[in-house]
């Protein structure tokens, strides 16, 4: 099963490689004085994909986005858009548009004028402009706010107007700099669905900067995980979550149990660092027999229980002192382990990922 998924991904890669990437970064370096924000980055982003740059703040992801937009020029390296070198080009010469973190709507212009700003600069005729602006506002389901000023809109509405203003120009690539960061949780989840739908409808390449791993996993076709100016791993959400290539990726994307030393040796026979996702682990009675062949198991004591609604998180510790977190769905199969209980933790050995 794992093998077919991998080969499926591989054939996808070879098919896409034949097409010119929408964006190609080659050995891009960016320094600000003493500080190196991006350290020699190579990255290809394919036509039409929803690509996320994920990483903690200060990892260089926003700097990469700003270099693609043209707000910053790379210290060295090369940036191609659809096969054309744009490394030293100004923002107004690039066929990309940006949705800014705090929207950057022009406060002195109405919503319609904001959305029509780029069209006006392109000298689109007045009639076409009116039609395109109306269509764009229709797409974001806000046709009734055309004459309002940005200050008269709610945060979610501003966010959508910023999206319409960038998309109305039909760029090759849309850059989104943490566009949902300022919204509350509920609105953010609603906007995620909408963004994904809009991306599918318009078919434009989206490059999405976020520090929210859940958001990146939910929205993206592929994700690049940034850490300290370097890309740690590029892959589909499943690749990154199930097969993290580094300790950083494993711990940054969701919770994981990182196991090394004696326990790791016992489980896999090698010294390599292991990542075991908490939701893969089951809690059994110590005397219960193994469910099936090919299972890993270890005895532990439950130290802490945290109830979170749909699931419960258990903190367990083995006799050797290794802490293991177990996430259990609160369904009919939920264990009734208590604090201090001696239990046996069990999971399929195929979920032992060496990092």
């Amino acid at each position, binding site marked *: 099963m794992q093998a077919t998924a991998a080969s499926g991904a591989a054939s996808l890669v070879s098919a896409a490689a034949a097409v010119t990437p929408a964006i190609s970064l080659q050995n891009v370096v960016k320094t600000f004085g003493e500080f190196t924000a991006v350290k020699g980055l190579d990255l290809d982003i394919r036509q039409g994909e929803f690509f996320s740059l994920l990483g903690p703040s200060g990892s260089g992801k926003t700097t990469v986005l700003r270099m693609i*937009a043209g707000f910053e020029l790379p210290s060295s390296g090369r940036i191609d858009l659809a096969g054309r070198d744009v490394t030293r080009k100004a923002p*107004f010469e690039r066929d*990309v548009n*940006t949705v800014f973190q705090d929207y950057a709507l*022009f406060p*002195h212009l109405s919503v319609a004028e904001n959305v029509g*700003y780029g069209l006006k600069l392109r000298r689109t005729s007045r009639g076409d402009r009116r039609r395109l602006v109306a269509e764009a506002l229709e797409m974001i389901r806000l046709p009734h706010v055309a004459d309002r000023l940005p200050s008269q809109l709610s945060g979610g509405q501003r966010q959508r107007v910023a999206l319409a203003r960038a998309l109305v120009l039909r760029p090759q690539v849309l850059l989104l700099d943490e566009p949902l960061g300022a919204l509350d949780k509920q609105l953010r989840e609603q906007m995620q669905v909408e963004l994904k739908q809009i991306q599918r409808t318009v078919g434009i390449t989206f490059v999405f900067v976020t520090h929210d791993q859940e958001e990146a996993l939910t929205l993206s076709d592929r994700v690049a995980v940034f850490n300290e100016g370097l890309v740690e791993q590029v892959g589909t959400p499943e690749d990154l979550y199930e097969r993290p290539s580094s300790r950083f990726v494993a711990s940054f994307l969701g919770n994981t149990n990182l196991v090394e030393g004696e326990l790791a040796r016992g489980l896999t026979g090698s010294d390599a660092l292991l990542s075991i996702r908490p939701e893969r682990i089951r809690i059994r009675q110590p005397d219960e027999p193994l469910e099936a062949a090919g299972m890993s198991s270890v005895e532990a004591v439950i130290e802490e229980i945290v109830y979170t609604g749909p699931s419960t998180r258990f903190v367990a510790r083995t006799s050797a002192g290794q802490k293991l977190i177990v996430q259990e769905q609160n369904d009919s199969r939920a264990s009734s382990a208590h604090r201090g209980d001696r239990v046996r933790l069990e999971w399929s050995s195929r979920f032992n990922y060496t990092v």
Partner: protein
Amino acid sequence: MAAPTIKPDITSDSTQAPVAARSGTGDTISRVLHARPKLRLAGLLALPLAWLGVLYIGSLILLFVTAFWTTDTFTSKVVPAFTLENFVEIVTVPAYQLTALRTIGIALAVTVLCAVLALPLGLYMAKVASPRMRAMLAIGITLPLWAGYLVKVFSWRITFMSGGPLDWLLAPFGLTGPGYGTAALIITLAYLWFPYMAVPVYSAFRQIPDNLFDASSDLGAKPWATVRTVAVPLLKPAFIAGSIFTFSLSLGDYIAAQFVGGKTQVIGTVIASNINLNPPLAAAFGTVPIVVVVLYLFLARKSGALKQL
């Protein structure tokens, strides 16, 4: 035991003599005022309003009244009467008309010159300069405000002097300075009032978020288009606020005109030369800049810019 006897004492004290029963004069006044907000307000504003009303508005009213008086041609004494003669003279005599128009023109030119200089300087200070450079420029701009007016005007008189520093500087290019006259007057006034334009424009520039410029460029605007369609509209209130100072101060100035204006007559110089000969005429002419400034403020208010000050 002392403590147990003192403690009940305190409680009984505070029940017998509550705070409100204190009876100093200050306490009485405070108590009376507390219940009467209007009286409180009157007490607060009486002095400043008297100052404003009697000395400031009062003197302006006196000026206006004087403008209707007349002067005895033989004795040069002011005769209180009611005549519109002075106003008729100002409006009909071409020399006065020209002077008024010239003064307004000079004030407008000074304002435009200040605005044109303040825009790039404000952009540089707010968006490009390092914090250190920004502080130095801020000091540089405001420093002349602390120098004496006469000193500054005199230094410009020397600069524009025939064969003076400006001529000397321009000589290698085969040029000479403008000499004393309208151009020198406009430059000098622009120098004098520049801080009043530069400071609001700079601080308004600082309030424009950087990403608005990024957004404009991102949407296809070249730098000049960004300045025209984003910066200038957002700076409009600052320009108008600054222009109120540059315009009205230029309109009322006469010393600079005397020092560097050469033969250029402005409203101020005409008033100054009539102040002893014919005070009612000087007063009538003095109402011209007041009326113009009031009109200017009215237009500024209509533009909506004052609301954002």
